[in-house]
Structures are given as structure tokens and as C-alpha cells.
């Protein structure tokens, strides 16, 4: 019986992720390619800026494109998660609907878009003269950690947004700020030493660095940094789910 429920929850996530991806396909001629347009345009901007700002980063194009794709998954998913409760009203009013599947649905959809963009990234790596290395086998692990981080934030933001409707605006501003405060188009080495301690507090810095170790430098990521992120999440995740659960009782009254 419990096995059936687990299977059912997995199926639920599957059909809802399928729905979101199909919707993206069907609404536009370019379909899923749209998710690539944005990072590619941003990439063009930074390649242009590189000449102006004299960034001295090896394999700049691959370096920045990695950063943009990883960031897009993170920022889009967390922004969307603020409105999932309000946006899925008919589903939530369905008796027995497990509201808790919604944050994983959004994060999984984002992860699939990320995975679909990976081949394009590989093309960039190839033309940058970067070889594929065995370190690539660590890629799923890092993706899993990013999934863990994003889903934790998704529960947290979705829960808060039920009470404070402008959480989405506040989060949009924060994400915009952290786009610049995370070394996406620059390198941590360019930042003065005494700021590093602050940078380390941003979990996306450790995750982004790990991706680049694997894809660009071709070696295993810094496990200590990643472990710290996972340790913090191990505490934060149950708390977010609890908050979400608690808030979900108010959904009926608030939506």
C-alpha cells in the first residue's frame, strides 16, 4: 500500500513535469530552445564586455556559459516556486492532493531544461579545446546537490509567499543582486581576499566552482566545500518542509 503511494507520488511528479515541459514546447515555435536563447544572449554580452573590461579568464566563453546555465536553473526555479501554490489552485483543492510534490516538480522541470542544454555546453567546451575527462562522472552528484539546495529554497519560498504575496518581488530583487555577487562572469580570484569569507557563505559559489572544476579544469570538485553545503542543507531542508507543511494548512483560507 505504501509502495503504491510512493509510486503514485513519483508518477504525479512525472506527469506534472511533463505537463510543464510540454506547455513550454507548445506555446512557442522555438519551444524549449527559448531556455537557451537567454543564456546565449547573455553570453554574447559578456564576450563583448570581456574586451572592454579586460577579464583575464582562460576559456572565457565556456567559463561564463557554464555559469549562466547553472544560474538559470537556480534563479528560474526559485522564482517560479514562489507562485506554485497560487498558480496550482485547482490541483490543491483536489482532495488528497499531496501539495508537497509541487516544489520538486518545479525544480525537476528546471533540471531537465539544464540537462537539455548540456549538449550545447559540450559543443562550447569542444571548441574551447577542453577535453572530456573522467571527472565528468561527478557531474550528476553536483547536479543532485544543486537540486537539493534549490528544492530546499523552493519549499521555503513557496511557504512564505502564501502569507506575504510580495515575496516573489523581494526574491526577484535578491536573485538579480546575487547574479552579480556570484562569480558567474568573473572569477573569485579577481575579488579582494577579505571578501572571500563572505563569498563562501553563498552556497551557489561552492556549487558553481564544483561545476567548473569538472567541466573546465577536468578534475574532481572540492568535496569539503560541497560537504559544508550539504551539511547546512541537511538541517535546513526538514525545516523548510515543515514550514511548508504548516503553511499548507492555511492554503485553503489564503487562496
Amino acid at each position: 500500500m505504501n509502495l503504491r503511494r510512493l509510486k503514485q507520488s513519483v508518477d504525479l511528479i512525472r506527469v506534472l513535469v511533463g505537463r510543464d515541459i510540454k506547455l513550454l514546447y507548445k506555446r512557442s515555435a522555438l519551444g524549449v530552445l527559448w531556455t537557451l536563447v537567454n543564456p546565449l544572449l547573455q553570453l554574447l554580452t559578456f564576450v563583448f564586455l570581456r574586451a572592454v573590461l579586460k577579464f583575464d579568464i582562460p576559456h572565457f566563453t565556456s567559463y561564463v556559459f557554464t555559469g549562466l546555465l547553472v544560474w538559470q536553473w537556480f534563479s528560474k526555479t526559485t522564482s517560479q516556486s514562489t507562485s506554485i501554490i497560487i498558480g496550482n489552485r485547482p490541483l490543491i483543492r483536489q482532495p488528497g492532493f499531496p501539495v508537497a510534490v509541487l516544489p520538486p516538480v518545479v525544480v525537476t522541470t528546471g533540471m531537465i531544461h539544464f540537462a537539455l542544454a548540456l549538449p550545447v555546453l559540450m559543443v562550447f567546451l569542444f571548441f574551447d579545446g577542453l577535453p572530456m575527462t573522467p571527472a565528468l562522472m561527478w557531474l550528476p552528484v553536483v547536479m543532485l546537490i544543486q537540486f537539493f539546495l534549490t528544492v530546499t529554497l523552493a519549499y521555503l519560498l513557496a511557504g512564505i509567499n502564501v502569507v506575504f504575496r510580495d515575496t516573489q518581488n523581494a526574491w526577484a530583487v535578491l536573485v538579480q543582486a546575487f547574479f552579480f555577487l556570484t562569480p558567474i562572469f568573473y572569477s573569485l580570484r579577481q575579488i579582494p581576499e577579505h571578501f572571500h569569507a563572505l563569498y563562501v557563505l553563498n552556497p551557489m559559489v561552492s556549487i558553481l566552482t564544483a561545476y567548473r572544476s569538472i567541466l573546465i579544469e577536468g578534475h574532481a570538485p572540492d568535496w569539503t566545500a560541497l560537504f559544508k553545503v550539504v551539511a547546512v542543507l541537511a538541517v535546513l531542508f526538514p525545516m523548510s518542509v515543515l514550514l511548508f507543511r504548516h503553511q499548507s494548512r492555511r492554503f485553503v483560507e489564503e487562496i
Partner: protein
Amino acid sequence: MTAAIRIENLGKRFRRYHADRPRTLKETLVSGWRPRGKGEEFWALRHVDLAVAAGEMVGIVGQNGAGKSTLLQLTGGVGTPDEGAVRVRGRIGALLDLGAGFSGDLTGRENVFVTGVAAGLTIREVRRRFERIVSFAELEDSIDNPVRTYSSGMQMRLGFSVAVHTDPEVLLVDEFLSVGDLAFQTKCLNRIREIKASGCAILLISHSPTQINELCDRAIWLKRGEVVVAGLPEVVTGQYEVEMRSETRRRTPHRPTTLAASGLKLEVNRNRFGSQEVEIVDVRLTPGEEIGQGEALVVAIEFNAPKAVRAPRFNVGISRAEDGFSCLDLNTEVIGDRAEVLGRGWATLSIKRLDLAAGRYYVNVGVFQSDWEYAYDYHWEVYPLRVEGGVSSKGVLGPPFRWDLEAHRALS
């Protein structure tokens, strides 16, 4: 027998928020974190007890805002009670906002999978039922078109079909039977009966007393969050209907059960309602409880007014026994008499000929306050009437008739 739905002393409190309650972060920051008024609380449901056995169907009537939908939601596990408990055994299905969860850009097929799984099935189970769902909704030809190209009727049909094919053990239904055309409605009703027969416990909200009488085994009447009457559907809906016209019930005193002239029991709030300011003492039907089709009928009402009452309105109605359909409804307002009555008296209605179809009926008699605000006394389904003879038909009327056939006969 253990109940599929067991609701015990259920209470749900809502808060009417003050208009100045902060709704956003900004407002909270501006107004500061100082403690704010808790807002005015009210009970949307209180002291509700209800048990529904497997295979049983219970109807819920009540005015808007009486707590019907809240009761359904809490039963479905949407929201948590503030008092008491709801226990439900088995998978819950629901016929609420049909088709509301559809995505217009996805095809009917894709939407069936999304809504089916969201309703608690696995993908495999939806696949196995898919053919049946589509053929029930009569959408074989358009199932691969985007749902946005469907008419609202088609969407509701599909929504209904998915919901009734999830094999629920408990089904919650909110005003569903406006789905599609008459033929489809009949199909829906039959399907509901099938589900019920298969052992599903059903809670049905409906504004149609006829529907509740037809489908339900029992009914409850919710008023301001509390159950005011529970019992046989005809009894509950009958009282509800009376209340809808007046404030009768509030004024009905408790009286011991009495026997009517017909020998049937007159029981307050079951088949007798009213303040008793004017009391119906006796009702006589002439020639009798059985009359021939097209015969005259005289309904004589003997009443007693202990205190003077100004211009009471007498009312006589005839309703069909099988479904409560109102066949006749006449009252004394037409004669415009505004005199006071005091003590005993008679009100007599003479019908020259009663051309009703053969069958069983009830004569319902009542005396009402002069502006129809409430009933002084109303006897409902107490006096049976049987119309004999003629050709029985599905219609209401049985007038004298004759057929004439004129046609050119084909030469063979």
C-alpha cells in the same frame, strides 16, 4: 458496520480579517511587528456529526454560506478542523470545479493523464482506464485536440469522466449535474448510482431537492454551520423548502405528535410546520381519498385560531407521491379577503374537476401569515389522494380526450 466517513463534533473557525491587516512584506514592515487585532472570528462549521457508510449517499442542503463547501473540503482533507475530527477510509474522489485543472494548450489525452494522476491514480492505472474515460465523455474524435478547442460542455464531460473513473471509495460531489445535455446528465446520474452500488460512500451538495430525494438515502440541512435537521431526504428537503419561503421553523413550537384525520401521524418538523397561531384541526376530502379521473374534489379545512389573526392565507397543493412534483398550488389570496379570524372556522376549496393522471398524490394544506412570511400551520404529505382510472401516463394531466386519425392509406 464501520463508516467510510466519520465526522465527529467537527468545527472550523474562520477569521474575518480586518481590512488593514498587512498582506505583504512591505505592509508588515511599515506597520511594524506590533501585535495586531486577531480579527473577528466566526464558526463556519460547528458541532457537526455525520457518519456515512459504504454504499450510502448523503445529501447536504443549505443556503449559500451555510458551510456546505467547507464541510466537503474538510472531509477531503483540504484544510484542518479547529474542533473535532474527520476520519475517512479509502481513496477520496471529488467532483468539484470540473475541468478547472485542465491546461488549454495540452490535448485531451495529456490532460486526462495529468488530472487522473492528480486525482490519485498511477500512470499505469490511467492508461488502463483511458479508453473507458474517453468513451464515457464521448470525445473519441477530439481527444487529441488541445483542450482549449473544446466547448465548456466538452471540458466538463471530460472532467466528470476522469473523476468518476478513479474508483473512489469516498466521493465528494458539489453541484455537478449541470454537465452537458440532458442525455449526458442522465448518464452521469446512472454512473453515480453505479458508483454508489459498488460500495462508495457519497456526500452530495445540491440545491435541487428533487435530486437529493431521488439519489440520497439520507440528507442533512446545514444552517450557519450547524446541522439543523437530519433524516430522510424527503423530510429534510421538504422542511428546507418550507424554510426557504418563510421563517417557519424558527417559530414552530414543540408539540406532541398528534393524529391527523387521515390517521397518519402529525409530527412537528417532520410533516407539520408552523407557529400554530392558527391551527389546522381537520382536513376532509370529498368524495374521499380515492377519486376518479375528472371528478370534482372538495378540500375542507377546519381550523382554530385561539387569538384573532388578520387575513390568514389558506393554501392547498397537490403533489405527486413518487417525486414530490407540484401539480397544483392554489391559495386564498385571489379572493382578497382581509378579514380577521377568531375561533373555529372552515376554509373550503372546491375543484370542479380534477383532470390529473391516474396515480398516487398528496394533498398538502397550509395556513400562512398574510404576507407569506411564515406558516401558521402546514401539513405536508399527510393526506393521501389516489386518482383512479383512465390510461396511466408519464404526464401530470389526465383530461378527457379522443383521438381521430385521418390519413391516406397506402395501397398495398
